[in-house]
């Protein structure tokens, strides 16, 4: 493994290690065995994630092209299963129990939707020289893929996992943009999604509405989501230039910060490592995403190009939304910080995505 690929691996592992340290710090004062083992489990997920990373980096990504629809079918089925189990068990459920592992299909769905869209927009028949996508009419260029995406997105939002649902929708808009479909359609799509929002609003659960309203005024709900945002801002801000030091963050350790090891891991990190730490972390994420974009622009194969670009953006958007959420600049919708937030499904999906990226880079010379 050389050059770009090695950079990706090293940066990803570095971020993951920072994540484990922050998770350890956020939980080490909490009582109970469950909390104490969380960072160990995160290490396990990262280990498994690295295995998947090496596997995927040697798995010819063109084969993903062939199995796209199968994978799409499987993930939609899993999402549907989550939905059905949610009804049967009288409760919301985002994961499926697979032995000792709780699979969260909505995390995996993010990646699979990117693969699906990359494949959809790069398909051409053997007789064609140029890609037909720029000549697509509104149905093939917009409506048909929208239907394909809307189904899983609906299931994800229903779980309820608003963050992942919106993220996939957002990815869709971006993939449409990247694919080279006429810009006019893109405008139509954006307007349409915008118009949908009031409709979706009615289907949201109360607490989801609360979270969106809280974004506008955190003091509406001082106990719930608003409180989290207020405390998260205090945590980040009080880190100042050099931070309070590892294991010394008061905000995250005194139970002020709910979700301090998942969605609000950034606040935990920022409090303890300060502005200097944040700049380093941002730089690492930037390098990672930059590598992805570089691979995308160098790749000649259109499927690979779209896929690489989609994967990098998927990571980029999650990083952006999550950090904004931590700083009170975006509503608290539950988007994890890739590679840092606790959670097996998210960690492994991210490593698989990076593995695909590396493989695209390896195979570049072939085409």
């Amino acid at each position: 493994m050389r050059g770009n690929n090695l950079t990706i691996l090293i940066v990803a592992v570095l971020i993951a290690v920072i994540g484990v340290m922050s998770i350890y710090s956020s939980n080490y004062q909490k009582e109970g065995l469950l909390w104490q083992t969380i960072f160990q489990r995160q290490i396990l997920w990262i280990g498994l994630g690295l295995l998947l990373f090496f596997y995927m980096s040697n798995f010819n990504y063109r084969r993903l092209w062939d199995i796209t629809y199968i994978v799409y079918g499987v993930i939609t089925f899993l999402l549907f299963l989550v939905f059905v189990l949610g009804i049967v068990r009288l409760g919301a459920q985002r994961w499926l129990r697979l032995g000792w592992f709780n699979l969260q299909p909505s995390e995996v769905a993010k990646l699979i939707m990117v693969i699906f869209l990359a494949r959809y927009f790069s398909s051409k028949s053997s007789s064609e020289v140029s890609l037909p996508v720029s000549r697509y009419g509104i149905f093939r260029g917009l409506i048909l893929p929208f239907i394909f995406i809307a189904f899983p997105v609906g299931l994800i939002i229903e779980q309820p996992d608003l963050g992942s649902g919106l993220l996939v929708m957002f990815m869709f808009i971006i993939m449409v943009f990247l694919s080279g479909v006429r810009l006019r359609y893109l405008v139509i799509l954006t307007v349409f999604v915008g118009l949908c929002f009031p409709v979706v609003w009615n289907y949201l659960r109360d607490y989801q509405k609360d979270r969106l309203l809280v974004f506008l005024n955190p003091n509406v709900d001082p106990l719930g989501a608003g409180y989290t945002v207020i405390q998260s801002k205090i945590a980040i801000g009080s880190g100042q230039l050099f931070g309070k030091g590892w294991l010394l963050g008061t905000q995250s350790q005194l139970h002020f910060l709910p979700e301090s090891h998942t969605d609000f891991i950034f606040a935990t990190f920022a409090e303890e490592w300060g502005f200097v730490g944040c700049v380093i972390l941002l730089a690492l994420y930037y390098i990672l995403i930059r590598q992805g974009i570089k691979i995308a622009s160098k790749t000649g194969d259109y499927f690979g190009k779209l896929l690489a670009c989609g994967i990098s953006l998927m990571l980029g958007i999650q990083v952006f939304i999550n950090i904004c959420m931590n700083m009170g600049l975006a509503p608290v919708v539950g988007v994890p910080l890739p590679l840092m937030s606790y959670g097996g499904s998210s960690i492994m999906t991210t490593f698989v995505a990076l593995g695909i990226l590396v493989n695209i880079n390896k195979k570049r010379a072939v085409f």
Partner: protein
Amino acid sequence: MRVHIIGSVIIVAFSILFLSIFNLQVIKGDNYKDQSDKNCIRLLPQAGARGNILDRNGNIIVGNYLSYDVMIMPQDKKVIDKTLEKVGEVLGINIAEIKSRFKKGYLAPFIPVMVASNVDSKKAVVLGELKTDYSSIIIQAHPLRYYPYGKLACHVVGYLNEIDHWRLTKLEDYGYKTKDIVGFGGVEEKYDYYLREDEGALSIEVDHRGRFIRILGFKPPKDGKDIQLTLDLEIQKIAEDAIGDRKASVVIMDPFSGEILAMASNPGFNPAIFINKKNNSIAALDNSALINRSISAGFAPGSIFKLVGASAGLETNKINLATTYTCTGSMRVGNRDFKCWDTHGDENLAQAIAHSCDVYFYRTGLLLGPQAIHDYAQKFSLGKVTGIDLPYEVNGFVPEPLWKRIKLFQNWYNGDTANFVIGQGYTLLTPVQAVRFMAVFANKGDLVTPFIIRNIGGKDMLKSRIKITKVHIKDRVINYLRQDLRGVVNDPTGTANILANLPVSVAGKTGTAEVGRNQTHGWFVGFFPFEKPKYVICVFLESSGSGHSASAVAKQIIGAMSQNNSINLN
């Protein structure tokens, strides 16, 4: 190529992040550091009241009363020590004890610590007056569950307890948190989401000495919704009194709508013991006290199951009204003698039902075969949940030959059929299934869905709850058997003849099911008044009763109901 545009978009996005973090940590950093050091935001929880549970006439079965908690807002150590001393003095708790409570409960500098809960109102007033001198005392009133009738209808109502891990994983996404108090069992569990109050909070800013500066935000608490049940408290009381200390269950239902009017199960528990956990009464509970025998346990039905065989026989013309068999006290099936409980001589169907003759039904069962009996049991929806709106209802069980082969690796013998048709062997029924089964004869052919919720938060549920399906059995057959059920009481030698001299005409069927050595379940399932039924009743005595003793309990219940002025029998 549009990929290049993306590259610049990413640079812009990261710049935004960089600048925002710079703004938060470097420019405003001092301010936030200050806030974090003092954390001058205080949160005062504001409790709402959980919804009441009422009976059909609006009487409160489960309500709330105000209880007072004493909390201390963390401050300088000196001030706190003084305050704790004073509080301890008023409450009569020694200073070391109260200090250790404060230490244990301390979470964060801005969250009040509870040092005493459930303080009586006089002491609460005294402490409230101290507040002028000791500003960190907070008296928090919050409603607690109150059970005016003790263990009455305890299984229907359920109890409250701290959320357990299993429920938490299930309910987390609905905003439930660890340490939340949630319903366990019964209406409290099933309708927790409606009953549940929404905790509010007041967030205030204080200065470094803990003195109030201003209100930052307020979220008013919301009370839970009241739930009205279909239960009639008067009937429920009568039923529970009649059971006494026996292990038993009584279900009384409206045969036309499916409204449950009484559902008693014994042994029970007083839900209040889960609120005040100081005593050891939880550990002292009978280990089956938490089970609602009316819906959560299946029992061998005994002779009440014969009605299935009778319906099947008449419907398929294997027997008719004139079919007569001679009961000699036993009958040989395979290589075993199957006994009847008496020697009845020549019996037709009406007599066989009135006397509950086993031999008659052995013969009918063998003519029908097990599959037909199973299929007819299914027509009455036995072996399936009734769909009552309470949690933890079980299926009961109706066997069939294929099941026996697959699950037990055994063939189905004629002996099994003989046991099956008289309700012995593998068959299991819940009392609520039995009552629903009897309702088919009371209302002449409809299978109702039993339910217990009448009204949630002022919204009438009756319409959406009443679900009736037709049983696919000829009216003629139902009507004929209905007449025979009257005979069980009417006939001087009928098994439930002790119910004959009540002021209301009763019809029904008794059952005595053998379970283990010298132990029998007793059943009486019936309806009254016979002409225009208003009530279906099931009395079930577990492991220590017979059809006769169950009928005696039924007699006591119906007798008491007829004497109670507030219950209209006709």
